[in-house]
């Protein structure tokens, strides 16, 4: 699975996710990536793209959950990402990337690694794999 989240200079957020799914999956199986609110979500507050065990991400409506705890619990972006990864995945293993309309970027995962990269206008840039 691959994904990208962006907030532009106007503060507009967007998210996109694309995948081949699981190796040896049944034909016809649909995962989290195309499900809006599960693998992909964007609103006025943030943009989120998820990867990992689709069944767990779907059951946790993971991407929308980041926006929801920002809106209703008033969490900041990284707090929201950490809360969702730690409390909404049950036994599942997954990761996600997110941006906020104020130009923040965040990510989190509860498996052994996630291929990710992030950058902000003030010059921050990071590319990583392991924890």
């Amino acid at each position, binding site marked *: 699975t691959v994904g990208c989240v*962006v907030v532009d200079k106007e503060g507009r957020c967007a998210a996109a996710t*694309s995948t081949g799914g699981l190796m040896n999956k049944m034909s016809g199986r649909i995962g989290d990536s195309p499900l809006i609110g599960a693998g992909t979500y964007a609103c006025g507050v943030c943009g989120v793209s998820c990867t990992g065990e689709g069944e767990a991400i779907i059951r946790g409506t993971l991407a929308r959950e980041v926006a929801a705890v920002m809106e209703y619990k008033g969490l900041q972006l990284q707090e929201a990402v950490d809360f969702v990864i730690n409390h909404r995945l049950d036994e599942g293993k997954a990761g996600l990337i997110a941006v906020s309309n104020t130009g923040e970027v965040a990510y989190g995962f509860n498996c052994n690694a996630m291929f990710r990269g992030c950058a902000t206008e003030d010059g921050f840039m990071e590319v990583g794999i392991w924890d």
Partner: protein
Amino acid sequence: MGGWAIAVHGGAGVDPNLPPQRQEQAKQLLTRCLNLGISSLRSNASALDVVELVVRELETDPLFNSGRGSALTEKGTVEMEASIMDGSNRRCGAVSGLTTVKNPVSLARLVMEKSPHSYLAFNGAEEFARQQGVDVVENEYFVTPENVGMLKLAKEANTILFDYRIPTVGYDSCGAGAESPLQMNGLPISVYAPE
């Protein structure tokens, strides 16, 4: 109002023994995609255009599980899916079950912008792709020798390969009933509460 920001990912759950040169390849691809997005943002591109541009790049490179280099079904074929969402008005588009569309994320955007729906799948999505004139290729284009090998491994292990989970002790407490032989991500399918 803050400035622009961008993040990309190439999947979670990685082989702990991934060879260093594969790790380096992955970092180079992630860096290339970040730079592609950054130069677009500096040219005032919209967030929606940048996420589509970057995911297309990731779909075209065979390194990660999407587009070319996608995971294979139990039949050894590729069935791809993608979605895109514009936060400024919460419009969205999604596709599933694609077998010939070169860049699924762009078809998802066309579903959002050129159809009355938010999600098209399988034959309907393939038909819409031809109506919209997007690039289509044979399914073989998406299959890589490496993934053919991975599928063989998965079949031998009778599992659905996703990531390297180290099953925690006592996980069977979540499972209802006897252990089923079918595995999902290295765990008995019973770990997943029946939908």
